[in-house]
């Protein structure tokens, strides 16, 4: 585990050196919160609840969602693409530790940094401005924390899979941005999934997206009960295993492919 923890540590130190970027992100996220919350306030007008969610729950949802978007660092596609473009990936692949493992350590390191530098200030600012509800219950809160952790790895594996496209296409283009958009809309980050038409919700239930934002946020505000939450965390773990298997297969093929090209 040595090299991975070292990578993780260096990323935290690098993060600390770029203070300005922190303020820029903070401002951008705050504007995002203000814009979405005002929109939702207009939507609610004099309604008490929409799709079983009160106005306060919706505001809490939007603030935490902006916080989580700031928290998650998923730079693996650009790490792979710059490695492929500059040709350094071949050298990195023959090092005696797992390259995706190192990439993951870097992203986790930055995520740890952004927890303090982004997540906490974003949630504090949003909470002070618009009011933040406490978690629905202690058990719900713990389950929400667990699902945030697993959700992060689901997201990371999806980004990693998209990143590996690089080996075929040389450049990534904006496939990671395509993924980001798809995740934003289908994960419940932009709008709770309850607002989607019924058939769409049924399709989404068979996809991994909602296990990244919808599940932890739903648990926090109490829209998902503890019982249902446990069941969904089970599904989350299944998705984690499936995606992990896929990435292992893909990276093994890449290793062979690169060796052939290099030899």
């Amino acid at each position, binding site marked *: 585990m040595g090299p991975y923890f070292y990578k993780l540590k260096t990323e935290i130190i690098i993060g600390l050196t770029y203070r300005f970027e922190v303020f820029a992100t903070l401002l951008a996220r705050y504007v995002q919160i203000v814009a979405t919350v005002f929109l939702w306030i207009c939507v609610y007008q004099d309604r008490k609840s929409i799709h079983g969610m009160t106005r306060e729950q919706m505001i809490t949802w939007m603030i935490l969602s902006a916080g989580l978007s700031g928290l998650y660092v998923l730079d693996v596609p650009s790490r792979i693409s710059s490695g492929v473009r500059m040709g350094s990936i071949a050298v990195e692949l023959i090092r005696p530790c797992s390259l995706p493992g190192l990439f993951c350590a870097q992203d986790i390191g930055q995520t740890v940094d952004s927890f303090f530098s982004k997540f906490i200030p974003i949630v504090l600012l949003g909470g002070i401005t618009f009011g933040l509800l406490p978690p629905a219950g202690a058990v719900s809160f713990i389950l929400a924390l667990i699902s945030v952790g697993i959700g992060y790895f689901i997201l990371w594996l999806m980004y990693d899979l998209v990143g590996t496209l690089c080996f075929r296409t040389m450049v990534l*283009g904006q*496939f990671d*941005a395509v993924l980001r958009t*798809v995740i934003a809309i289908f994960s419940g980050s932009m*709008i709770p999934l309850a*607002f989607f038409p019924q058939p769409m919700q049924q399709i989404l239930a068979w996809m991994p997206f909602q296990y990244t934002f919808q599940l932890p946020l739903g648990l926090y505000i109490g829209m998902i009960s503890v019982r249902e939450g446990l069941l969904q965390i089970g599904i989350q773990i299944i998705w984690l295993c499936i995606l992990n298997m896929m990435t292992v297969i893909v990276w093994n093929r890449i290793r062979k492919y690169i060796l052939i090209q290099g030899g």
Partner: protein
Amino acid sequence: MLEQIKYYLGVMFYNFRLEILKELEYAIYSIAWLIMIPLSAFSGYYVLWLMTQQNGNINGWTIGELAFLYGLSMFSHAFQDMFFIQTRFIDYQILEGSFDRALLRPMNVFFQFCTENLNICGLYDLIPAIALFAYGCQKVHFVWNIGNVLGVVFGQRTQLNWDLRLGETFELLRRIYRVPEKEYLENVAELTQVLGLTEFMDKPVRQLSLGQRMRGEMAAAMLHSPEILFLDEPTIGLDIDAKKAVRDFILKINRERGVTVILTSHDLEDVSKLCDRLIVINHGVVVRDGKMDQIIRDMAPYRILKCETAEPVEKIRSSMVQLMSHEGNHMICRFDHHQHTASEVIGELVKEISILDLTVEEPNIEDAVMELYHA
């Protein structure tokens, strides 16, 4: 004035052409944007649509009116993305130091900044923009009733475009420095031949080796026949072949075209083979400045005499030479060639030792420079 406009437009359009070629080089990149931009815009609109499902409007704004506004803002976004996308990368430009390049070119810096990168992907913004705006117009029943002298090579910072072929970068530089077609073709032909560019002229720069790229950089710097050429460590990291090509080239342009070359180098072979005048700088202070052979003569006044003798020698009585080292039948000594000629010295030595073979060596520049630094 008119000519100025023509010049600027010429450079701009050629730059745009290169951007389009670059875009075609990475078709997959374009396709990804083509999916991403409309997807992102339409999903944003879709979320708005979902939000209006409750009341049929948001604070009185109907979905049609929102489409109108959304489409309109996408138009300005498209315009901004096409021409001013550079502003997003200004921090990288400062970090990499690519601004130096813009400052040294005989063109308005802001103009260069804006036209350097035409983002064709901005056009894709027009897809959702037109679609949503048209839909919005229809919904709100909108009524239409308004009627250069310097050439620069930076060691690692390239002025060659990473993604394009060498020839294409040259063509762009021709336009920037306003090199007449005839002169340009002659220059390219000559540079291609001297630097041996033929084999990789049509390869994208990213596929070139460091040596090939350096030769490309040299050619790029010489295209507009500058009078002075600044080279910062031109041979660093190059293989023997490439080093020789670069050195021969520098000598050739200096002799034949009368180009003044100012180069910095840690490689003293560069210095001894290329320079007439040497300026030695130590910790930012000029230690010596003068003709190179003069400096060498002053700093290393000795010549080295290597002899093979019939018998081992341990001591020399003559005051002309100093014995520096001896081992078996070989000895190395030095003498001051300002005071004595080599033949005088050898004449003296022969009187006391029987010499089988000897060589006299020039002092070398490394010794001279060492002396300077340690003085």
